[in-house]
């Protein structure tokens, strides 16, 4: 279970602390998914990164499976992220120097028991429809294809939590549709906790739980 409790995030600025999140709480169980919407600069991505153990909150707690990642040492935190969290960014963030298959396998480089993962990587790439592009470099792929590789990479270690930051933001409508469908299909298959931050209403509409960030606080969508 992911539990975000009363999280506040402030950034220093010349005119005093700038509050981006204030008292945000959210709880999701395994297999549940939520979309978070909001205008630019509302703190959506910040909340996502806090949930993903990438940026510590100013106040409040985050636990995943009962573990508060911000209380563990850096080395263990890296391992925690590696094993428990998968990320998909708006900009796919693939390593240009690696092939499609290698990009999917990059997280396994720092994981234990690496022997099983090449097969899983091929399987995931087959699931996202890229089984015939294993040796290609990111530069040889379209935007949608790159994002599908990023999705496969995010799921390679069977994370409990899958976090997606505008996963379709850079894609055309058809590609966005395909990536969204894949995302939800794989989520359902893998039974992850899925949080998607998006501006895309069509994508958000696919989620039963939808939230909106306004004035640094989280509200159920439409409330």
């Amino acid at each position, binding site marked *: 279970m992911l539990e975000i409790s009363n999280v506040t995030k402030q950034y220093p600025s010349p005119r005093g602390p700038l509050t981006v999140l204030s008292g945000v709480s959210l709880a999701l169980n395994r297999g549940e998914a939520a979309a978070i919407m909001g205008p630019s600069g509302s703190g959506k991505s910040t909340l996502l*990164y806090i949930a*993903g153990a*990438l*940026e*510590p909150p100013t106040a409040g707690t985050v636990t995943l499976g009962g573990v508060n990642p911000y209380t563990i040492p*850096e*080395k263990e*935190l*890296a*391992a*925690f*992220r*590696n*094993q428990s*969290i998968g*990320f998909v*960014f708006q*900009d796919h*963030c693939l*390593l*240009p*120097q*690696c092939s499609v*298959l*290698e990009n999917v*396998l*990059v*997280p*396994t*480089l*720092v*994981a234990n028991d690496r022997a099983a993962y*090449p097969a899983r990587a091929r399987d995931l790439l087959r699931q996202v429809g890229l089984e015939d592009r294993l040796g290609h470099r990111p530069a040889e792929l379209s935007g949608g294809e790159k994002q599908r590789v990023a999705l496969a*990479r995010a799921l390679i*270690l069977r994370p409990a939590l899958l976090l997606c930051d505008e996963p379709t933001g850079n894609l055309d409508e058809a590609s966005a549709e395909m990536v969204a469908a894949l995302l939800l299909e794989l989520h359902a298959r893998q039974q992850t906790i899925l949080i998607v931050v998006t501006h895309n209403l069509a994508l958000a509409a696919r989620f039963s739980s939808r939230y909106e960030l306004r004035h640094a606080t989280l509200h159920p969508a439409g409330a």
Partner: protein
Amino acid sequence: MRLYTLLARNLAWYWRTNLAVLLGVATATGVLGGAALVGDSVRAGLRDLVLARLGNTVSIVTRPGFFRQDLAAGTPIIALEGVVGHEAGVEVYGIETPQVLITAALAKDLGARPGDDILLRIPKPSSIPLESLHGRRDDAIRTIRLTVGQVRDLPSFSLRPQQGDVRAIYVPLARLQRDLNQPGKVNTLLLTHAPVDLKQHYTLADVGLRVRTLDNPSCLSLEADSALIGDSVATAAQSLGFRTQPILTYLANAVRMHQHEIPYSLVTALDSNLAPAHDDGITLNDWAARELGANIGDPVTLEYYVWRSDALHTETAPFRVERIVPLAGDAADPNFAPDYPGITESRNLRDWDPPFPLDMSRIHPADEQYWNRYRTTPKAFIRLARGRELWGTRFGSLTSIRVFPPSPHFAESLRAALDPARAGLTVVPVRSQALAAARGATDFGEYFTYFSFFLMASALLLTGLFFRLGIEQRTREIGVLRSLGFSASRIRTLFLLEGAVLAVAGAGAGIGVALFYGAVVLLGLRTWWFDAVGTRLLSLHASIPPLALGAAAGMVTGLASVAWTLRRHHSFTPRALLAGAFLWGRLAACGRVVLGLLALLLASLSLFANQTAAFFFAGTLLLIAALLFQSAWLHARKSPAIGSLVALGLRSVRYRPGRSVLCIALIASATFVIASLDAFRRDASPPGPFPLVADSELPLINIPPLEGVQFIPFRLHPGDDASCLNLYQPQNPRILAPPPRNPWPLLDSRLPGGAIPAIADANSMTYSLHRKLGEEFELAGVRYRIVAALQDSVFQGALLISEENFLRLFPDTAGYRFFLIHTPPGKADEVARTLTAALSDYGFVVQPTAARLASFHKVENTYLSTFRALGGLGLLLGTVGLAAVLMRNALERRRELALLRAVGYRPRHLLTMVLAENVFLLLMGLSTGAVCAAFATAPAVLARGGRVPAASLAILLALVAATGIASSSLATAAALRSPLLDALKSE
């Protein structure tokens, strides 16, 4: 997928940046390895040269005088220094050769060819010291006419370790022995094996001693070829357990009583029944008493010559007649007197040919009759102590030692007791000495490491810079890896591994660079920087140790540079990295200011140290302080308002302050070196009181007087040139002694422990002798202490000691061979011409003092030129770095530039903007370097008369500025060439 797969992918994908890093490491490796290789090559070159010149000679037996040529198994030769034609300082060797050979260098100087006649002047061997009564000062040179048989090419035999061409003449040994009247004798034996034990081989004759058997009285008489027995030999002879009688016989110009005198009489000082009982008593033989009309108790005066203060002086001593003995028995012994050439063999008094003035008018028939009948029989006797007091010299104070009874064992006992080395017969391990000397007075490896320091520093800064650019390019990649679960340390390890691979590959490539760099530097030393080495015989000796050293140092420094670059990345959150946050610049501006102030304080303190320290420490610290202040300013939050294109461009300087500071540092450090070195150049020295200096190949005792000209003569003990003109490490430097009245009272001080106070030229002391002021050291068994150092002096290459100490250490070294000459104003040239013409037989070479100093400065200036050239290369690297950074900045801001073009900026606007930024960096670097150099070198400049080579410096800095602006313009133009739409689309 393995970590090394990712590593390989990274290395291949970012090949451009990695290649730049690799080249940076290769350059640093190459420069360091090349510098070490230069040192090794110079040492190897010197070693090969000296070994080729020594042939298979391992050691030599040598003596200032001559000895039997079959003293030991070896090759007998005569080795001298002489004058050929007007060429002084020529090595003269008597060897087994059928014809006269001269080296190509000497032939060139003489303009001589085979078949030409040449005149050779060499010191005439004489056992009798020149600075004694019987020394033949006016006949000290032997002139020999020779015909050149052959001009000999390299390698030429030489015993003198020197990197320059050998200027030598090789004369048939028998011919030289004949002309020097030394049949069967030589002064050097070449040994091809380990040193021999001379004690087993030498005879008393080899060290100038002989034992005569006398019949009346029956005894042995120990005598010396020099007519005076040295004190150490006398002590040894008298401590062997035989009954001995020491004797000193001297020539009195007159034995006088009232109006009567007996001219040119020998007087013997001894302790026997002939001697008077009192020191002021004198015993006359009855012939003398009769001639003088003297009775017991009458006053008698002895008049005699003594050698004092470089001239013969007539002195007198009063005595009272204590005894009158019959001219018979012991009193009629002509063997009290040693052999004096020109005197003892003369048939009558008027035939005497002594080396001192004789007044023949004082000689009467009775005196001739005495000579005819009694020859050298003394006419008077005094006590030995009194005789020694009057006539003792530094060469000894006995003319013979008689041994009673005539033991057949005395000669062997004395031979066994004597140390031949104390008598001047020594074995010199020339090969090992030459090998030690070949290690070099100047460690060129060390020098070129210093000279190349800024080149290396630039290369390493570039290495760090390129690596940093590469990492900045991959900031988001680091963020992705962090979000995927890579720990900061693992990412650091990954990058360090990349750096290690690049460092190893760079170091490998650097070996090739080192070979190239070493070859180029050696080419420079043979050509452009010839004055620093004075030889064209240096070539590259590729050896593993310097290359391994360079490679290891390149790897370590390259990796350190990479590690330094990576030191901060872990302190950023993955999110910040994903957003492309800068990895650098966490130290607060105030922290930089504090560090800058600290550096400034240390720089101020360093200025109180000596000049060299002031330059290296104060200058470097000033530079660091300035860079820290600039860094603080660039990292400050507040920026000036943007009111113009230039201001907009200058705002960009703060965009990546780390890069900007690095650019400034590269340019500033190179400028600092170049500007500083110019301030250290020595062009001319202010005229001193002695406009001329002179060297005499053969010792001069009497210098012909010239009106208005004053000579300050220096005694010289020949040795190795310890000046910067000699690359070999001097094993036994030349020693000079000024006359007693000199401006250096420290030379006369008595030091605890008995060390001899010495003064050295500061440069010779530091760079050739590798000594410090106050340091004690031993040379040929004698301890010296450097009590003072002279700046920029004509005494470079020698040690100065007092005349008293000199004569004690080298009693056999006679005459003067170095002179300071004061001339009337405007007469220096005329005096030089006159002296050169009058004393050319002595190899007297007169040179303007300014020219002598200029020859030393030339070496120093050549070193500075070398340093400057390599500093210039560093500056070139700095400019390359600047261009790379500018290109990178321009490419990164491609979108920004495209946007500005889209909103109506013209290319020239953008060029103005970018140039403003680049010119600012360039000028900051140039001015920082120049100002720091000005402060750091101010003490040195002021000490040299406040001369600043402003013109050459201004030209140099202008060239640097022009190069920098050109590279900036190219970088900007390249960035502006990218299509507008592509750049905008990527936005």
